[in-house]
């Protein structure tokens, strides 16, 4: 009973906020995509084609979570209808699919739209139409600008934040700080954002090299030789997981064994194991990887345990992507719940902007979404792979930062709050 009360209290807050807006604007028809019994949520991501590896599980996991919520009564009596479209990682297709979602499926909100170039083609439309654009799957910092994109809410910490966290950890770990540093990145938002982050944190490198995502099959021999010749001892790497696997394999071949520090989105262990086979654990041993979620292997954690249960019960593989997919879907469900029974687009945004600190999730860093700032998650802890190929958490503290062009990361403590009952919103 008490639970209902609290939720109602939340809903009332949201309702007041919505009401205030409602006074300013003459009475309008209900927002599209929401009825008494249903909420329509849209999403675009690569589900087929070269860029789909791994990522295709994110919407599948979200769907599994929404199915679960629907089975348990939905949100404020509404069932979630989740329409996930395949854009094959092609920006033009993303736009066409988003138009279909907006104009034909009449979605209430976008959730988990994937890819930087892809999202660039629709972010204006979504914002112009006041469509909530929640938890976009890109680490590019440009979309976190609340002035330009008031309805867009990132979730992933930006690559700039990740670079700053890496820089903080390197600088404050003597055995790493003494090493000769090099930087390798994937062209695109990875490179630009990460470079900016390192620059802001005052970190410089002996050698910097890059690659194009489309060219992974052609091999990384030249990049590796370049870094080996330069005598790199610590390599920070920003690229997708397939690239990480190729980099590790090529480096092993030529006997290049620096200390690796790899971006969180480029180090999905099951994918690396799939590509490198038996050699994977050996090559990944001692690799540093920052992360923002509770370690996926920390099965004692109630988030991890329950999300794993949910994912596996839905017939999906348990990996970082399904973990991440369920986690963001869980936060969205809480936001929808907090937006109250009179669900509007403004109400959802308002719920996100006023309650972000209260949403439960497997994240181990604060979620910053306010009326003046849309940063999403704001930091990382540092982890390291062990001989068994699992990522262990090295720091009990977290390293928080903004995407700003100056200033590094700050050390902080963050204590996770437990999940809601049965992971229901």
């Amino acid at each position, binding site marked *: 009973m008490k639970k209902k009360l609290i939720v109602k209290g939340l809903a009332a807050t949201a309702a007041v906020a919505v009401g205030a807006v409602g006074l300013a604007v003459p009475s309008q028809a209900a927002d599209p995509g929401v009825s008494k019994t249903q909420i329509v949520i849209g999403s675009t991501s690569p589900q*087929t*084609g*070269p860029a*789909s*590896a*791994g990522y*295709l599980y994110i919407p599948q996991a979200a769907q599994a979570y929404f199915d679960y919520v629907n089975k348990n009564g939905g949100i404020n009596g509404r069932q979630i209808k989740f329409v996930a479209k395949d854009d094959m990682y092609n920006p033009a297709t993303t736009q066409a699919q988003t138009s279909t979602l907006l104009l034909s499926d009449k979605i209430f909100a976008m959730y988990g739209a994937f890819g930087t170039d892809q999202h660039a083609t629709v972010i204006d439309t979504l914002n112009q139409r006041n469509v909530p654009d929640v938890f976009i799957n890109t680490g590019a910092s440009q979309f976190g600008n609340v002035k330009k994109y008031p309805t867009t809410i990132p979730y992933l910490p930006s690559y700039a934040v990740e670079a700053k966290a890496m820089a903080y950890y390197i600088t404050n770990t003597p055995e790493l700080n003494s090493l000769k540093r090099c930087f390798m990145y994937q*062209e695109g938002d990875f490179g630009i954002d990460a470079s900016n982050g390192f620059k802001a944190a005052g970190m410089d490198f002996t050698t910097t*090299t*890059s*690659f*194009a995502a*489309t*060219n*992974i*099959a*052609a*091999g990384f*021999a*030249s*990049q*590796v*030789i*370049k870094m*080996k*010749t330069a005598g790199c001892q610590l390599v920070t790497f920003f690229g997708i997981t*397939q690239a990480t*696997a*190729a980099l590790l*394999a090529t480096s*092993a*071949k*030529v*006997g290049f064994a620096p200390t690796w520090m790899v971006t969180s989105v480029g180090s999905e262990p099951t*994918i690396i194991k*799939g*590509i*490198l*086979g*038996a050699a994977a654990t050996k090559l990944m041993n001692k690799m540093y990887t920052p992360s923002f979620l509770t370690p996926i292997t920390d099965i004692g954690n109630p988030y991890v345990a329950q999300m794993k249960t949910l994912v596996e019960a839905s017939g999906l593989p348990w990996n970082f992507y399904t973990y991440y997919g369920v986690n963001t879907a869980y936060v969205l469900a809480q936001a929808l719940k907090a937006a109250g029974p009179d669900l509007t687009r403004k109400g959802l945004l308002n719920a996100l902007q006023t309650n972000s600190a209260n949403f439960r999730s497997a994240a181990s860093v604060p979620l910053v979404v306010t009326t003046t700032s849309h940063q999403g998650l704001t930091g990382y802890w540092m982890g390291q792979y062990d001989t068994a190929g699992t990522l262990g958490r090295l720091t009990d503290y977290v390293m928080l930062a903004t995407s700003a062009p100056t200033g590094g990361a700050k050390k902080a403590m963050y204590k996770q709050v437990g999940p809601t009952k049965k992971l229901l919103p």
Partner: protein
Amino acid sequence: MTTFIDYLLGGFSSGAVIALFALALVLVWRSTRIVNFAQVGQAMFTTFIALAVQVATGSWILALLAGLAAGAILGLIVYALVLRPVQRLDTSGSIIATFGVLISLQALASMIWGGDPKSFAPPVANDGLEIAGRIWPISWYDILVYVVTAVLVVALTLLFTRTSLGLSMRASAFNPEVAKLSGIRVNRMLAFGWALAGVVGAVAGVLIAPTASLSPNSFDILLIFAFTAAVVGGLDSLIGAVAFGVGTGLVLALVTGYGEAGDAPIVVLILLAITLVVRPGGAFGRGKSRAV
């Protein structure tokens, strides 16, 4: 200097694989005057079959043999179903038809095996060899790839120039009507050409899979490089395909090493343009062929 040699060796490895795909493209061109955009798709598909055999039996040799057989059969199927009914397609028609086969095969592979990249264990170690106290970016596995490439080029060259089968294939491709009037069973020759190309593509796929990873789209970029190499080499020339396939690998490696990775495609484009302007029929083409 050692760095330069390192780059060359690294480029050689990727170049050899580009060369094998270029070789397969040349074979199809020689037998049916078609540029087979589906070639990398066929190679990918047969490599998945080879992988299944390797996983089931643990034997690389059996996997290779299964891949070769599957390559030949798939080549025949594509030829019989798609290309044979329309032997006189123009260039754009055949590009679209083979492109259609390519994306269908990729989608089919995704349906069967999923989109996640898979590993393919090499038969011999792929670790760089230690010579004179230094590890070089060349492994026994690379050497195996070079040997297979070299053997294939020599064997195919002999087949085409020294045997009546090769002569029949060339005649069938150049002028099917004259070939028929000479008593050659042209359709069989064309089908044989596709099967042979399928086999060479399968070899390329099985050889590259252990050094990269195997997924429905993992060979896409190689098609583009291989097509470039085959065109610059003169499309009819086996030696040209191999030389420029390896050359493309070397250019990519050197540009990436001494410049930026992103410059590599631009440099390849410039070299392609220069070669074609100087020799419109490709470097190893027979110069200007008859106008009519």
